């Protein structure tokens, strides 16, 4: 019964399909012949069928030798039919579904493009043509005009555009009466206001097209009239902008902080300013702000001219840590800091120039307590040191660097850094000595004042040449470094003794110190490719370092007369020469090099009490010649694993202060004296590392290991004895010992337990070392074993909440061969939890809690320090440009500095006061606005 309606329906459908097909067939063949406007047949033209809605390519063919083309049996639907042929305007027309199976377009004519445009624009200027219907536009940036030119000057150079003496513009013979800038009218209707005023370098495109007349636009009726219109497109601001931020903060306990930086840049120039001031122990800016300050020059300052393996072309002078504007607060005391500077970079690809100036100062106020226990072969003693220190240090730094690309094969780098610094410090110290049985021995009070002014200059020039032969290179460098310092130490000590024959000893000294250090150095490197994968490198390094030290120690109690046995004047010179060669193989991720260098060190020195006085010892003249081998191997596996290993042999000359035979007695209980017979330190270094990452699972893993084995090592041997007027006196003297090693291992890994949500981080390290040294003539080997590890979990339940928890433990075992019962076990543990929560739009809660445990059971030392910080911040204003933050630091008021360590024949524990609980309210303004989301990680 149901069959009949079914059949009827099917029949009807079939009928309708057939009838439709009768009207417009399913398939159609589109064909035609292409000719140009003068009737010439156009063979091999590209013919395309496009989707008329979005111009997606559906089918294409080419015309044959007779200019004929055909799309056979294509779907019969609407098409955009398009023909393109070199030198002709692309033809585009809409085809509707065709009623018959053959759609013959007949002869399709195409129009040629003006020869001038093809040759001048496309071929000569390499500018793209943009075709809109019958109109052609072109990219103006490829037409070179001298700097400072106006748009008018630019237009004069464009083919097809004429500019008359009055500045009237004609395009393809027609006057331009309407001009837009970025599609908008520019200052009224006179096109000349733009063409005469805008700079040519701001323009990226000049477009000329026909636009409907104003009237047609108003009425909406196309009157067929078109006006020639020009649009000037401005260059994108990709390499241009301003960014920066400023923060002002005030808190309880008289805490305050100000910081700000602003950076402006365009394609060629960068200018930045930075400044800060605070009393919250930020001695400088953070690395992120510093890198913004230096801009693109941040990573350029590390190029030195030392060529060859091991980097060694004589020592380079680096700025000491207090000269860097990056925060380097060590956790002790209270500081008040100011700093600021400016940086300028220029870069036009051929010339890169950088100049910067930075000033910083820090006033430190420190109260510190430390306990040291010293072990002798048959005895031990301890001393507690209480220190009150006031220090003011400041520095002015100027850095410049020029990199000039001379031509495509040669580059020259010149750089110079100057730093002027000062230091004024007062140092009050009480040292209380106790014998092994706990009885007090003596109490030493020091009152020392130091003033130091220093000047440093580092300069270098590097020239590199690449030969036409690929891989053949030559480089030469020269450098001059100079530093000068002069200082005064005003030393005063009172020593009180608690033994039966109690008496007091008082010492006053005045030290005048002048140091002068200059170095010239040079290096040469030549690389010759032996094949595509084998390279031969040869290098030569030279340096000469001259050092003059004048330390005159005077006795203020005795008309400032010189104290001869504490005064020294010395001149030293180190000549360093090294020539070496190595062969390097590099292929398919395997890099291997092996080399050998001959290194000669020559040390010359003269010591006298003062300039012009007879020499204290025979002039020192030592010469060392060593052969230094070096080998490196690295390999990249195909699965993102990388391994490397290397061997090197190092010979380092002794420092001159270690060679001078006159003691330094700033602290009578702890003196150092040099050793003129010192020989260089020699060591073998073997290193290995592995790195693996799995981009698919987001996990990574790394491992590294370094082993140093010393042939000869410079260590401080100690003579500790009881001296009547001093008490327990330690004299440390550098000596060569053989033996000893250092073995460091570290490991890290990161593994997502739940991808993008929960990540496990692991870190571990193991450091083993043995250092021999003599204590009262008896060899003591100190073995230091430290093991540390941390485990952490990062949880990201959603975009609005980040949680972290981690724990770490550090074990440090120190054993002394002279007194094994004194072996130390130092333990530090910590647990950390953190939360970042965006609980309302534009409002964030951030808090972290650290629980630190310090233990040393042998001393019954056991201290727990919980630190809890919390803050809440809210973004306000348009584009979230303002941030208001209320922060509480160390809510439990427990912060204190603790350090435990053991070395040589002692163990030490230091505790220092520092900034504890305070609350702070800060307001920040960011030129670009703050992000209204949690920062999950660093920038990348």
């Amino acid at each position: 019964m149901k069959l009949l309606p079914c059949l009827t329906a099917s029949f009807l459908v079939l009928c309708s399909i057939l009838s439709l097909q009768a009207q417009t067939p399913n398939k159609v063949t589109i064909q035609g012949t292409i000719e140009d406007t003068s009737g010439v047949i156009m063979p091999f033209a590209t013919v395309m069928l496009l989707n008329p809605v979005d111009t997606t390519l559906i089918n294409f063919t080419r015309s044959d030798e007779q200019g004929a083309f055909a799309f056979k049996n294509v779907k019969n639907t609407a098409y955009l039919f398009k023909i393109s042929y070199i030198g002709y305007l692309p033809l585009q027309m809409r085809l509707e579904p065709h009623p018959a199976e053959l759609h013959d377009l007949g002869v399709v004519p195409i129009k040629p493009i003006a020869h001038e445009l093809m040759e001048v624009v496309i071929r000569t200027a390499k500018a793209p043509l943009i075709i809109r219907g019958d109109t052609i536009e072109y990219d103006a940036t490829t037409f070179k005009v001298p700097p400072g030119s106006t748009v008018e000057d630019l237009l004069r150079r464009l083919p097809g555009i004429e500019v008359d003496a009055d500045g009237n513009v004609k395009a393809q013979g027609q006057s331009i009466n309407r001009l837009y800038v970025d599609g908008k009218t520019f200052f009224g209707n006179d096109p000349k206001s733009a063409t005469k005023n805008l700079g040519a370098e701001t323009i990226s495109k000049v477009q000329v097209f026909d636009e409907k007349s104003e009237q047609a636009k108003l009425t909406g009726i196309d009157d067929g009239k078109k006006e020639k219109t020009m649009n000037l497109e401005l260059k994108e601001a990709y390499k241009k902008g301003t960014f920066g931020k400023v923060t002002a903060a005030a808190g309880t306990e008289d805490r305050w902080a100000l910081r700000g930086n602003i950076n402006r840049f365009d394609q060629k120039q960068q200018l930045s300013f930075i400044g800060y001031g605070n009393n919250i122990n930020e001695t400088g800016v953070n690395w992120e702000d510093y890198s913004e300050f230096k801009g693109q020059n941040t990573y350029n300052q590390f190029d030195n001219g030392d060529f060859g393996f091991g980097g060694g072309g004589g020592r380079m002078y680096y700025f000491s840590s207090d000269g860097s504007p990056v925060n380097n607060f060590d956790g002790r005391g209270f500081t008040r800091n100011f700093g600021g500077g400016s940086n300028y970079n220029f870069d036009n690809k051929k010339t890169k120039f950088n100049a910067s100036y930075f000033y910083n100062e820090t006033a430190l106020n420190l109260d510190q307590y430390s306990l040291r226990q010293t072990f002798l072969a048959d005895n031990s003693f301890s001393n507690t040191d209480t220190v009150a220190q006031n220090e003011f240090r400041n520095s002015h730094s100027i850095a410049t660097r020029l990199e000039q690309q001379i031509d495509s094969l040669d580059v020259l780098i010149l750089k110079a850094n100057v730093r002027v610094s000062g230091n004024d410090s007062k140092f009050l110290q009480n040292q209380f000595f106790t014998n092994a049985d706990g009885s007090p021995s003596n109490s030493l009070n020091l009152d020392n004042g130091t003033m130091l002014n220093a000047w440093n200059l580092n300069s270098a020039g590097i020239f590199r040449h690449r030969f036409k032969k690929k891989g053949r290179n030559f480089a030469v460098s020269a450098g001059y470094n100079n530093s000068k310092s002069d200082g005064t130490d005003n030393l005063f000590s009172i020593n009180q003794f608690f033994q039966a024959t109690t008496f007091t000893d008082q010492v006053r000294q005045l030290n005048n110190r002048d140091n002068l250090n200059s170095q010239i150095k040079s290096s040469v490197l030549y690389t010759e490719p032996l094949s595509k994968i084998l390279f031969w490198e040869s290098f030569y390094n030279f340096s000469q370092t001259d050092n003059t030290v004048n330390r005159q120690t005077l006795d203020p109690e005795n008309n400032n007369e010189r104290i001869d046995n504490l005064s020294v004047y010395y001149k030293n010179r180190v000549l360093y020469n090294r020539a070496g060669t190595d062969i390097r193989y590099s292929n398919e991720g395997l890099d291997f090099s092996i080399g050998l260098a001959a290194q000669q060190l020559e040390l010359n020195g003269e010591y006298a009490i003062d300039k012009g006085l007879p020499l204290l010892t025979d002039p020192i003249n030592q010469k060392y010649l060593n052969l230094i081998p070096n080998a490196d191997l690295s390999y990249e596996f195909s699965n993102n694993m990388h391994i490397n290993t290397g061997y090197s042999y190092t010979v380092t000359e002794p420092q001159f202060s270690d060679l001078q035979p006159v003691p330094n007695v700033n602290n009578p209980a702890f003196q150092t004296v040099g050793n003129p017979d010192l020989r260089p330190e020699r060591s073998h270094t073997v290193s290995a590392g592995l790195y693996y990452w799995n981009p698919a699972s987001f996990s990574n893993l790394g491992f590294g290991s370094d082993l140093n084995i010393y042939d000869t090592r410079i260590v401080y041997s100690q003579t500790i004895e009881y001296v009547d007027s001093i008490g327990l006196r330690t004299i440390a003297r550098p000596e060569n010992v053989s033996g000893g090693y250092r073995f460091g291992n570290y490991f890290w890994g990161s593994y997502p337990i739940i991808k993008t949500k929960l990540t496990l981080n692991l870190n571990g390290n193991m450091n083993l070392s043995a250092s021999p040294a003599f204590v009262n003539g008896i060899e003591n080997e100190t073995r230091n074993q430290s093991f540390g590890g941390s485990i952490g979990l990062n949880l990201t339940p959603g975009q609005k909440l980040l949680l972290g928890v981690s724990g770490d433990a550090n074990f440090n075992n120190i054993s002394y061969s002279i007194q094994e019962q004194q072996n130390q076990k130092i333990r530090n543990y910590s647990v950390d939890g953190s939360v970042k929560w965006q609980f309302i739009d534009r409002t964030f809660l951030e808090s972290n809690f650290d629980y630190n445990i310090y233990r040393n059971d042998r001393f019954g030392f056991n201290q727990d320090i919980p630190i809890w910080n919390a803050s809440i911040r809210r973004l306000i204003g348009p584009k979230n440009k303002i941030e208001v933050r209320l922060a509480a630091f160390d809510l439990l008021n427990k912060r204190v500095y603790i350090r435990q360590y053991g070395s040589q024949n002692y163990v030490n524990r230091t505790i220092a006061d520092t900034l504890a609980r305070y609350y702070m309210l800060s307001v920040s303004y960011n030129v670009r606005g703050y992000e209204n989301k949690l920062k999950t990680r660093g920038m990348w």
Partner: protein
Amino acid sequence: MNPRSFSPLFLFLFFLLFLAFMAPQHGYAQAMEGKIRYLKVQNWTKQMSALDYMSEQQRQKMSYMWGNDSEWKTYTELYFSPTRSKYLDSDEKAEANMEGYNGRKDVYFIQRNFEQNSIHDAIQLLGKTYIVEDSLQCQSWKIKNDMKEVAGHICMNAFWRDTIKQQDITAWFALDMPNSAGPERFCGLPGMILEIDINDGAMNISADKIELMPVGEKLELPKKIKGKKIKEVDFQNVIATQIEDKRKTEQPWMWGMRY
């Protein structure tokens, strides 16, 4: 002497004869067989800036810090005949300071057969080698009207948006080179693709040398490439999943994956 010891030699001679016989057939399509060397310029500041989670401050800072020094140039090669093409990374170095360093190259061979309508690619992705074997699937290009010259050929342009990688891609194809091949995995235009520009200069691949010559065995994939066989749609899924995961953790997806 044992005549069997000659057999490899005979085989070799036979092979030479065979080649000699084949050679004229290769010469048949002489005009449209050859090699294109492309200069590939990657600008990683632009690549990073194109990531949608970057804030305006971060974009400004990247442009400031690295804008002038973030281009990385390499060469790639395309061998083509009227019916086939093979694309790979070149051994030639475009950066002079890379002379002397030959790192491991990721596996990347893109083979197209327009006659058999098939693709056969070997691609290292996220540390793993995939062999993509499937029917030919090219991008659905939108044809535009602009014209410019690339390596001596007048080209027209076409546009395609890669929604997975969020890339705006402009291709310039030569009107006088009737071949549907192109660099990387791009294909399917009425002329040889001589230039590809992605995200306004984040990556630009432009032909800088075109040599017409018989290419013969250069079109074959190197033997002994092991990898996981995969269909195009599954391969695209691997890419899409990775990019989405990286987006969630606000990390760039380009490490371990070709841009």
